[in-house]
């Protein structure tokens, strides 16, 4: 049986958790510590915590807040948002974070990826790639919460990040975020085929079957937001996670 990581992605905004649709239309989900406690009980594989304001507001990681959240997490926790220096990364690791997620900094300063990998090991450096369809040029890598087109094609950028020292790629399709329309399996396939490091699919999941589709196209792990914090059809807040039975029967049964 091959266990495949299933990762709730939690978005921090003004001290609370929110969930977006296509990186917009924020809906309040609840208190982050409370959410992490529930995810502990559900024995989730890993958590990705992303502060969606830290980069835009240029205030960097809120170490105190992150430490408080991480102190309740008995599973691995990755953090992203506003990271621009090795000092910040060191601070995050010291305060209970296992992995950092670099997004804008990876585009602007790939040397940070390299230096972080050299000092802390590539396994602790995740690069998140937000892909959006440009109306003329096709899929492109965006930063600033999906607002700025970097001009990079996803595959080329993923390869560059692997070379720079990234240990994992969190591959997001912004157009599918919060839509429950399933992952962008074509994108996943293209990127996963072109790098040797693990690719984590995110953006659009609504069920374990979506996880399976992503893994069949080469994803090494899967992440989701809405699926774990909302109950459909009315998107009432309800934290959930697939049962071990369902994961074993479907996801872990994949070859």
């Amino acid at each position, binding site marked *: 049986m091959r266990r495949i990581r299933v990762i709730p992605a939690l978005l921090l905004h003004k001290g609370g958790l929110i969930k977006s649709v296509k990186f917009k239309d924020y809906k309040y989900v609840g208190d982050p510590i409370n959410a992490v406690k529930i995810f502990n009980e559900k024995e989730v594989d890993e958590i990705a915590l992303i502060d969606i304001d830290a980069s835009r507001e240029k205030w960097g990681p809120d170490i105190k807040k992150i430490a408080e959240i991480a*102190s309740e997490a*008995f599973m*691995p926790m990755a953090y992203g948002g506003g990271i621009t220096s090795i000092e910040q990364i060191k601070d995050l690791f*010291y305060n209970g974070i296992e992995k950092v997620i670099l997004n804008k900094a990876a585009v602007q300063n790939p040397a940070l990826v390299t230096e972080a990998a050299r000092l802390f090991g*590539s*396994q602790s450096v995740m690069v998140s790639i937000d892909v959006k369809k440009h109306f003329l040029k096709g899929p492109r890598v965006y930063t600033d919460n999906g607002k700025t087109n970097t001009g990079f094609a996803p595959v080329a950028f993923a390869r560059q990040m692997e070379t720079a020292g990234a*240990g994992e790629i969190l591959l997001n399709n912004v157009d599918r975020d919060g839509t429950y329309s399933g992952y962008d399996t074509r994108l996943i396939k293209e990127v996963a085929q072109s790098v040797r490091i693990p690719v984590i699919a995110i953006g659009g999941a609504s069920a374990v079957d979506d996880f399976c589709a992503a893994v069949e196209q080469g994803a*090494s792990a899967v992440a989701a937001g809405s699926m774990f914090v909302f109950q459909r059809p009315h998107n009432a807040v309800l934290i959930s996670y697939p049962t071990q039975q369902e994961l074993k029967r479907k996801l872990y049964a994949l070859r």
Partner: protein
Amino acid sequence: MILTIIDYGVGNLSSIKNMLKKIGVDSIISNKTDDLINADKLILPGVGHFDYGIQHLHESGLMDPLNDKVLQHKTPILGICLGVQLLTQSSEEGKEKGLGWIKGRTVAFDKPKLDGNHKIPHMGWIDIKGFENSKLFTGMYDEPRFYFVHSYHLQLDNPADVLATANYGYNFAIGIEHENILGVQFHPEKSHKYGMKLLENFVKYY
């Protein structure tokens, strides 16, 4: 009982302290020789590059007291992740000599033996079986699984030193148990109730 988590500037120490606190065990995170000498139990954590770890251990000035404590006084020590790799004689990751308390080396995953589903670094959970002989797993919950993050693994000379093995593409040693010297490649502090039980057992039975 004094449990000291050795702070040599490498890795995620507060996670270990947090989990110990959760199971009602006080611990100190310290880089002071006195805290090491006074400890009843030691945890050697670590994340990152082998050479970086060894160099920091040297720079911290803790190398001699640590050797004395573990080899002469036989104080129980649990290495975690890089911490267990440092217990071996060397690593393919770097040039520095390891602590060498355990005969064997730390080697890179043999990539040609892995199929496309087994990416490196290995990051994820593995079900662990076959450790019934170790007190570390006393009263363990059903279907224990642990979280791994690594690109290198142990290769021990003496099978008796192997705590347990697991499979990621092929079987490899996931830990060490040799008298008072213990270590695990995975992260108990990030492995939910399974890790809690393991840490509890380390405190209780060693």
